C-alpha cells in the first residue's frame, strides 16, 4: 500500500508555518499565553477524541472525559502514592484507559445514534461515580494533588513552563500525526463508509463492529494522552474532570469548531477555553453566554466554525492560490466538505432508523 502521507507542497508549507509558529510561541509571547496554549493542547486532545468518533464514525460520545480522567488518576495515584518514576505512571495510565475502553467498547458497539449518546453518557457517569465516591482510592471529591511534572533528560518540566510546553507539543504532534494518518488510511475510509451507510458496509462484508470497536479504543487512547498532561500541568485531578459538565463542554468545543478532526477540535477548544477565562473576568453570566452561543452555532452554523470556513474556503482561496501560482486540480470545490457529508449521512440514518 502506498504511503498515504505524501502531502502536497501547499500543505507542507502550511505545516512548516504552523510548526514554526508553535515553536516560537514560548519565545515571543507572555507566560500567560504559553499557559493558555498548554491548556488548549490537552483539552484539544480530549476534543479530538470526540471528533474522531463523531466526524469519522458519526457517533457522538459523551464519555471521552472518562478516559481522560482514568489516565490522569493513574498518573496521580502511581506518582503520589507509590512514587513510581516517570515514565511509568503515564504509560500505565494510558494503558489503563485503553483497557477500560476495551471493556466499555464491548457494550458500546452494540448501539448507534441516540442510544449511543445515552449509553456513553451513562457509562461516563459510571466512571465519575467511582471517582467521586470510592474515596479510599481516589480521595473522592477532594481529588489528588501534588502531582509534579516529570524531569526529562535533566530538564524539569515542572519549573520551566517552556520545557513543559515543548514536552507536550511533541506528544501533541505525535497524536496529531497519528490521527491524520488514521484519517487518510484505508481504516479511516472504512470508518467514513460506516458513517455514510452502515448497512452498505455490512453488505460489502466489512467487520463493522470490529472497526467501531477499534476506533473507540483509539479515541480513548487520544483522550488518555490529554489526561496525562492535564494531570501533570494542573498538578491535581478530581472527579470534576470526568463529570458530565466536562463531557458536555467537550461536545460544545467540537460543535463550535466543527467536526473536522484536527482543526475543528483545536479551534473549538481554543475559543471555548479562551472565552472561559476572558468572559468570566467580565461578566458573571458566563454560562448564559455559552448556552446562547452554542444554540446559535447549532442553529445557524451547524458545521461549526471550521466547517463554515471550509464552505467558503474555496471561494476565498482560489484567487490566493492563483496568485501564488499553485492551481491544483484536486481542489475540493466540487465535492462536499467533510461537515456536509457528515450531516447528510446522519440525516439518512435518521430516516432509516425511524
Amino acid at each position, binding site marked *: 500500500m502506498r504511503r498515504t502521507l505524501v502531502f502536497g507542497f501547499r500543505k507542507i508549507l502550511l505545516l512548516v508555518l504552523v510548526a514554526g509558529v508553535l515553536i516560537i510561541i514560548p519565545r515571543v509571547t*507572555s*507566560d*500567560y499565553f504559553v*499557559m*493558555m496554549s498548554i*491548556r488548549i493542547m490537552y483539552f484539544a486532545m480530549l476534543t479530538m477524541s470526540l471528533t474522531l468518533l463523531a466526524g469519522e464514525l458519526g457517533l457522538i460520545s459523551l464519555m471521552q472525559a472518562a478516559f481522560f480522567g482514568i489516565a490522569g488518576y493513574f498518573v496521580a495515584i502511581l506518582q503520589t502514592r507509590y512514587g513510581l518514576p516517570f515514565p511509568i505512571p503515564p504509560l500505565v495510565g494510558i494503558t489503563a484507559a485503553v483497557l477500560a475502553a476495551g471493556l466499555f467498547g464491548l457494550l458500546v458497539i452494540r448501539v448507534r445514534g441516540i442510544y449511543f449518546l445515552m449509553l456513553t453518557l451513562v457509562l461516563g457517569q459510571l466512571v465519575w461515580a467511582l471517582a*467521586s*465516591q470510592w*474515596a*479510599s482510592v481516589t*480521595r*473522592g*471529591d*477532594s*481529588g489528588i*494533588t*501534588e502531582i509534579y511534572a516529570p524531569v526529562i533528560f535533566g530538564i524539569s518540566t*515542572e519549573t520551566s513552563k517552556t520545557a513543559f510546553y515543548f514536552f507536550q507539543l511533541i506528544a501533541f504532534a505525535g497524536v496529531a500525526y497519528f490521527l491524520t494518518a488514521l484519517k487518510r488510511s484505508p481504516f479511516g475510509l472504512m470508518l467514513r463508509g460506516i458513517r455514510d451507510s452502515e448497512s452498505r458496509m455490512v453488505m460489502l462484508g466489512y467487520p463493522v463492529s470490529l472497526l467501531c470497536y477499534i476506533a473507540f479504543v483509539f479515541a480513548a487512547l487520544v483522550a488518555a494522552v490529554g489526561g496525562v498532561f*492535564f494531570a501533570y500541568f*494542573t*498538578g*491535581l485531578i*478530581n472527579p*470534576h*474532570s470526568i463529570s458530565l459538565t466536562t463531557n458536555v463542554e467537550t461536545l460544545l468545543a467540537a460543535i463550535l469548531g466543527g467536526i473536522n478532526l484536527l482543526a475543528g477540535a483545536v479551534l473549538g477548544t481554543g475559543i471555548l477555553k479562551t472565552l*472561559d*477565562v476572558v468572559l*468570566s*473576568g467580565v461578566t*458573571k453570566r*458566563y*454560562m448564559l453566554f455559552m448556552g446562547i452561543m452554542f444554540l446559535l452555532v447549532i442553529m445557524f452554523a451547524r458545521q461549526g466554525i471550521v466547517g463554515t470556513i471550509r464552505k467558503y474556503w474555496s471561494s476565498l482561496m482560489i484567487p490566493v492560490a492563483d496568485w501564488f501560482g499553485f492551481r491544483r486540480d484536486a481542489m475540493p470545490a466540487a465535492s462536499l466538505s467533510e461537515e456536509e457529508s457528515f450531516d447528510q449521512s446522519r440525516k439518512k440514518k435518521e430516516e432509516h432508523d425511524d
Partner: protein
Amino acid sequence: MIRRRVVWLLVAVFLFTLGALGTANAVSEIRIGHIGPTTGWATIFGQNVLDGIKLALAERNYEFNGIPIKLFTEDTKADVEVMRTKLDSLRSRDKVHLIIGPSLGHEGVAAVDWAARNPDMPILVGYSAPEDMTMRKATHNLVRPGWTGAQVIFHFGKYCAKELGYKKVIIVGQDYSYPWDQAAGFVRGFLENGGEKVERIWHPVEAVDFSSILARLTGMAKDYDAVLNNSGGAQVVGFFKQWYQFGLDKVYPQILGQANVPIVSMLSELGDQALGVYSSLHYYDGNPSEANVKFRENYKKAYGRYPDVISVQGYDAAHVAFKAMEAINGRVDDSKAFIDAIRKVTMSADESPRGPFYFDKYGNPVQNIYIKKVVKKDGHLMNIAVKTYENVSQFGPYAHMAEKYMAAPATTRSYPPGDKDAYFKEIEKYFGRDYVENLNKNKGWID
C-alpha cells in the same frame, strides 16, 4: 584639580538622584485578586467572601494612604483546573500583590499546592478549611485568617459530653473530607471528655432522600443520646425537613449541627426547625460586640441581607491585609516583607466581628471558639453563645504537642475510631501514655 572636583560633584548628584528615586514610593496602585466560586452551585461560598472584601474596601474608599486599590475577581466555577489557571493569570496577567481566596475545600488543597510553587505571592485564604493547608502542607506565603474543620469543633465534643451529658452520639454527614474533619474533631473532644461512642453514618454529597437513614436512626434511638448533622447547604435543609416529617424530634433531643448548619443564610430556610440547635464556630451572629454589630448593619445596608460567617472571612481577610500594609508603609511590592507583616498581624475584639485573633506559626488563627445555640430574638432567629473557649488554635487542646498531632494518621471517614476503647488505644500510640493517664486523672481536658 577643579575637573576632578566637578566629576565628584557630578557623581554625588547622580547618586543622590538615584537614591531619591529609590526611596520614592514605587507602588502606584495596590492590586488585590479574589478567587472563588462566584457562579454555579457554590456561588454563595465565593460571592459572600467577595462581598465581605468589598465592604471592607469600600469602608476605606478603595484606597490605602492615598494609593488606589484595584480589586480583581476571578471565578473558579468550583473547578480546580480553572482555579489554577486563574491563579496563574492573576499572578502574571494582572500582577496582583495579594490573592484572597479560595473558598471550597478541594480548592484550598489545590491552592496550597500552587502556593508552594509560587512562594512569592501572598495568599490569604478565604473560606477553605482543610487543616493540612496550615499544617502538614503549610507554606510560608499562605496564611489563613479563617479556621480549620477540626479547630471549631474539638470543644463542641467536650461540651456535648460534659455539659449536655451525652454518652453516645450519631453523626450523619456528607461523605467528603470536610465533614470527615469535623467528625474527627468532634470524636476527639467527645471521647476524651467522657463520651463513650460516636457512630458515623455517611451519605452521598448530593443525597436528597434521608428516609433510610432516618429509619435507622429511629431504631437506634434507645441506645444513642443525640444526632449531629454534619452537612452543609441543601442537604441540611433536606435533612431537617425530613427529620420532622418522620417524627425523629419525638425520639431525640434537638439536632446538633456542624459549622455550616445554622449559619445565617440557612436559618431563614430552616425556620423554627432550627430552634435550639447547638453548634460551634469561631463566629456567632448574635455577638453583641461593637465590631460585629457595626459589620452586620453596614453589610445589610450595602447588600440588603445579613452577613454570614462566609462574608466575615472576606471582611477579616481584607482587614488583615490593611494592617499588614500599615506595617510596611504600603510597600506591597516587597512580597517578602508583606508576607512577614501579614503573619504578624493581630486583631482585637474591637476590630473583628468574630473576636480577637492572631496567627500561629503555621499561619492559622488562634481565636475564640463559641458554643452556640439558636434562639429567637425579636421575632427572628439568631445564634447566641452559651460558652466561649478562648485562644484555641487549629490544634485545639493539642497545641502543646502540635508535632505529635501532625504525626498522627490522617483523618478519614472512619479515623479516628468512634469507640472509646479503640480510640484510647490509638492515641496512646502517638500522644503517649502520659497524656492518656492525665486524661483519666482529670476526667478530660483542663479548661
